[in-house]
């Protein structure tokens, strides 16, 4: 079990007292967490809601962590040691604005106070119980407050900001009661000198961005080529202090002693990073300069936070917490990396599994001899353990050895196929391989193709596909995965592909495509090296075949007429099916590109239906029994077709949150569509129901979960679809002697008669995800794996969702194992 926090946005250190040194961090995933500074372990963390973005955190009174979130509306205080929420208060204001949090040492009526500016209003809040002590609104309509400053040791605070007419406003407010003391405003044109920035930049082209930092007197401008540091001297005069070509990140200011401030610079140079701490007033002196070797796989440094401590010889030492491009978090102290956390795994986009290598029989004699000493040491340790003579370090070593050699964490396949590699693509563009035995990271690779560069400004990873899974022909090759991404947020941005070896993690091929990627369709054909052919459909509905080899073209041409795909347009409510035509023409033509023609389209009435969910079968699922035996020695044949598509639509008004519409105004319509012919096999309406819908389709059934507004409970429904055209084959004589169509393949061309059965049940939990288990030999019954909103996994036997359940089952039905019908699905943990 592993916990992650995500990419850190803000961090506050807590290292004053002796004892545990902590750092409190808030992340982009709306998580607040406390980490141990010695080891990087999480003490506690809280996951806030998806809309609850954390705007600011700070530590007050040495024991409370104060967080401001949801655009400045919610202020919470948490107990620092254990994360228990102490109080929560809701702040309202007249308009949206930047949110600022300032902890002060003010004591108003015996309570320590916090000053919060949110939603256009200035509040003073008590630290102990969250009560708002006073509020102040500003008369200036268009005031944009930039900073709230409290000069040390005084009883008033300054609020500075800009008004619409580029007037600089300064308000001085009595902190005890919110009274306005002074109000000054200066127009911008009064600045004595405006040195054009371009003078300083000289020949650096590109966009210039001012790096945000709270250091007084120095600011930095970043362009594509270099970073320039500029100091303010005298009356608005600017002076270039330093110009560097490396990627640089600047931290906020830290006050290290009375009146002195320091800040840190981190620069990337090849495989090293240089950490420099300078005092704020004196650029040329360095308080600290270290150079640390950094793993190239982490990318560039994105953020740095510094903290100081007093060394034994009374000088200042610094430690720095840095956030890297792959979202990982590292602590640097005294020239070395103390710990690191792989928090990129907090934002995984897609996962696929890969088999481990086959175990090679036999161990060479040489290996045994080399390890003789280790073996002896291991046995001595174990002996010491049993005789109770072991020291704590010995016990730790014994545990470690036991874990390393246990069955779970071996790097080879096991008999039942439980040990696999999970390959995960994260939002940061990094690929991780995790071992399913103990969750350790086997390899990780920052993808070059998804790296921010000039040609690809905003790389976004899309999904992972199995590219090469060697079975029979090419057993000595390693399996590999295909990573598909695109270079921008819109759907017609150019795509990028990467092929990564699953055992070693090396990216052996990366392509920048000349077309966009709208859909990726893995074809059921593989070439002689077991590479699976994929069709990439772009925004103009052209299909491109990968890998671009002649062999692939030959295999593809022979199956040309059998390739169909579909597209779902959520916004317009149109589902279309396509087949391939000839080679495409145009300027992106090569022999691997094909035109498509539209075969069928289903237009859903947009005034009454809006598509919210679709589901299809997993490709590698095998159906073990074609027929389902029911009571009375009767047989029903399952309609198993891999071209089924399940679509769920709701009334357009009801596509919002739960409880936003009345039951009369909302309904849920589900369809089962055959994607080759476009035939709607089944359609069902649930009145008074609403999404969100989670669905899973497997074999011949669909299970979906939605919200029933009338009963105000969640419901789960099952639809099973059976093939009537084979139902005449129940006579044994016909099977043996006559001709029957049981062995004819299921084809979408034949318009088989289908019948469906369905049923609904109440269900307690709200879901985040739903999936179905696979079985190798078809012996174990299928279970539905349900991920609840409380982050728990429930395994529900499929027999509970059998549409043939009835309230009083007959004797024959009871024999078959049909459970009597109840209105809600029971959650029995042991069953």
């Amino acid at each position, binding site marked *: 079990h592993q916990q992650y926090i995500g990419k850190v946005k803000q961090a506050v250190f807590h290292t004053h007292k002796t004892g545990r040194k902590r750092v409190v961090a808030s992340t982009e995933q709306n998580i607040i967490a406390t980490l141990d500074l010695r080891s990087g372990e999480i003490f506690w963390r809280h996951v806030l809601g998806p809309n609850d973005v954390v705007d600011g955190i700070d530590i007050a009174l040495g024991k409370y962590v104060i967080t401001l979130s949801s655009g400045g*509306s*919610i202020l919470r205080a948490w107990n620092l040691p254990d994360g*228990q*929420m102490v109080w929560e208060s809701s702040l309202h204001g007249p308009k949206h604005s930047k949110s600022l949090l300032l902890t002060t040492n003010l004591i108003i009526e015996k309570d320590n106070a916090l000053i919060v500016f949110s939603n256009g209003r200035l509040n003073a809040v008590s630290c102990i119980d969250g009560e708002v002590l006073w509020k102040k609104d500003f008369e200036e309509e268009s005031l944009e407050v930039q900073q709230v400053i409290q000069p040390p040791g005084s009883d008033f605070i300054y609020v500075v900001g800009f008004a619409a007419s580029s007037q600089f406003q300064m308000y001085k407010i009595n902190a005890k009661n919110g009274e306005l003391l002074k109000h000054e405003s200066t127009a911008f044109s009064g600045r004595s000198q405006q040195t054009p920035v371009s003078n300083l930049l000289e020949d650096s082209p590109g966009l210039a961005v001012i790096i945000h930092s709270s250091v007084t007197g120095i600011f930095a401008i970043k362009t594509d080529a270099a970073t320039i540091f500029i100091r303010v001297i005298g009356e608005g005069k600017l002076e270039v202090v330093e110009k560097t070509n490396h990627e640089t990140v600047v931290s906020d200011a830290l006050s290290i002693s009375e009146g002195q401030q320091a800040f840190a610079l981190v620069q990337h140079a090849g495989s090293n990073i240089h950490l420099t701490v300078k005092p704020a007033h004196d650029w040329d002196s360095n308080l600290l300069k270290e150079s640390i070797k950094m793993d190239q796989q982490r990318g560039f440094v994105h953020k740095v936070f510094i903290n100081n401590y007093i060394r034994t010889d009374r000088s200042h030492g610094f430690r720095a917490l840095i956030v890297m491009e792959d979202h990982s978090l590292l602590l640097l102290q005294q020239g070395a990396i103390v710990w690191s956390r792989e928090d990129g795994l907090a934002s995984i986009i897609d996962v696929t599994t890969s088999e481990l290598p086959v175990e090679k029989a036999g161990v060479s004699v040489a290996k045994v001899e080399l390890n003789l000493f280790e073996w002896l040491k291991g046995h001595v340790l174990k002996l010491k353990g049993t005789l109770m003579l072991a020291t704590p370090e010995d016990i730790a070593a014994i545990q470690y050895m036991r874990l390393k050699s246990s069955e779970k964490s071996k790097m080879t396949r096991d008999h039942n196929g439980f040990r696999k590699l999970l390959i995960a693509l994260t939002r940061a563009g990094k690929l991780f391989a995790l071992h399913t035995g103990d969750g350790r990271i086997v390899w990780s690779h920052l993808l070059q193709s998804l790296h921010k560069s000039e040609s690809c400004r905003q790389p976004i990873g899309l999904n992972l596909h199995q590219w090469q899974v060697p079975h029979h022909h090419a057993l000595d090759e390693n399996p590999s995965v295909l990573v598909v991404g695109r270079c921008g947020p819109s759907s017609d941005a150019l795509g990028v592909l990467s092929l990564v070896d699953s055992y070693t993690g090396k990216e052996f091929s990366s392509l920048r495509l000349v077309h966009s990627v709208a859909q990726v369709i893995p074809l059921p054909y593989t070439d002689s090296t077991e590479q699976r052919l994929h069709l990439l459909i772009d925004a103009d509905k052209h299909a491109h075949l990968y890998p671009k080899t002649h062999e692939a073209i030959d295999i593809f041409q022979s199956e040309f007429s059998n390739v169909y795909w579909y597209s779902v347009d959520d916004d317009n409510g149109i589902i279309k099916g396509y087949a391939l035509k000839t080679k495409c023409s145009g300027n992106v033509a090569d022999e691997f590109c094909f035109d498509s023609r539209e075969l069928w389209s289903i237009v859903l009435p947009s005034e009454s239906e809006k598509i919210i969910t679709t589901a299809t079968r997993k490709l590698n699922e095998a159906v073990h029994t074609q027929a389902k035996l029911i009571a009375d020695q009767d047989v029903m044949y399952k309609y198993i077709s891999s071209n089924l598509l399940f679509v769920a639509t709701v009334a357009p008004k009801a596509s919002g949150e739960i*409880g936003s519409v009345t039951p009369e105004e909302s309904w849920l319509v589900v369809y089962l569509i055959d994607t080759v012919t476009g035939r709607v096999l089944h359609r069902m309406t649930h009145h008074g129901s609403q999404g969100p819908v989670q669905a899973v389709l497997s074999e011949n059934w669909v299970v979906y979960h939605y*919200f029933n507004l009338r009963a*105000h409970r969640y419901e789960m429904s099952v639809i099973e679809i059976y093939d009537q055209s084979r139902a005449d084959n129940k006579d044994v004589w016909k099977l043996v002697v006559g001709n029957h169509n049981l062995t004819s393949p299921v084809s979408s061309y034949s318009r088989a008669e289908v019948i469906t059965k369905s049923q609904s049940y109440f269900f307690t939990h*709200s879901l985040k995800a739903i999936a179905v288990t696979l079985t190798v030999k078809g012996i174990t019954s299928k279970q539905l794996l349900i991920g609840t909103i409380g982050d728990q996994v429930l395994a529900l036997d499929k027999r509970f969702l059998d549409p043939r359940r009835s309230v009083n089952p007959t004797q024959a039905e009871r024999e078959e194992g049909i459970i009597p019908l109840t209105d809600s699905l029971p959650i029995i943990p*042991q069953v």
Partner: protein
Amino acid sequence: MSNVKVLLNGGQNITFLRPDGYFSFHNIPAGTHLIEVSAIGYFFSPVRVDVSARNPGKVQAALTENRKGLSELVLEPLREEQYYEIREPFSIMSLLKSPMGLMVGFMLAVAFLMPKLVENMDPEEMRRAQEEMRSQGVPSLSSLLPG
């Protein structure tokens, strides 16, 4: 207490508990909403909350599992979640019912009851039976039948 979250409407709003167990949601529009509690180890029924549009601040709540109305919004767990199979507690009866227990029981019964059956036979019959057994060697079914 610190790991308990209260969710509104399927996760749109998440709030936490104060040390005294109080929680609050702000700015909820009128209508019907669903509150769920997520606490590891306990099962809470989702609560249907109706916020009245006409009287601001009036809230009615009812459990969805058993349709019980709540006069004040106090949520208690319906039951504890069992994540593991409960080990069956030790009981003498289960020991006796196990195969070893049955075999021992049977042997004890035979050891005590069989002599009682033999006791009731008169000595003549017993001598005759013993002679037959000696002559035949293996007792056959016909010899065991009376008469």
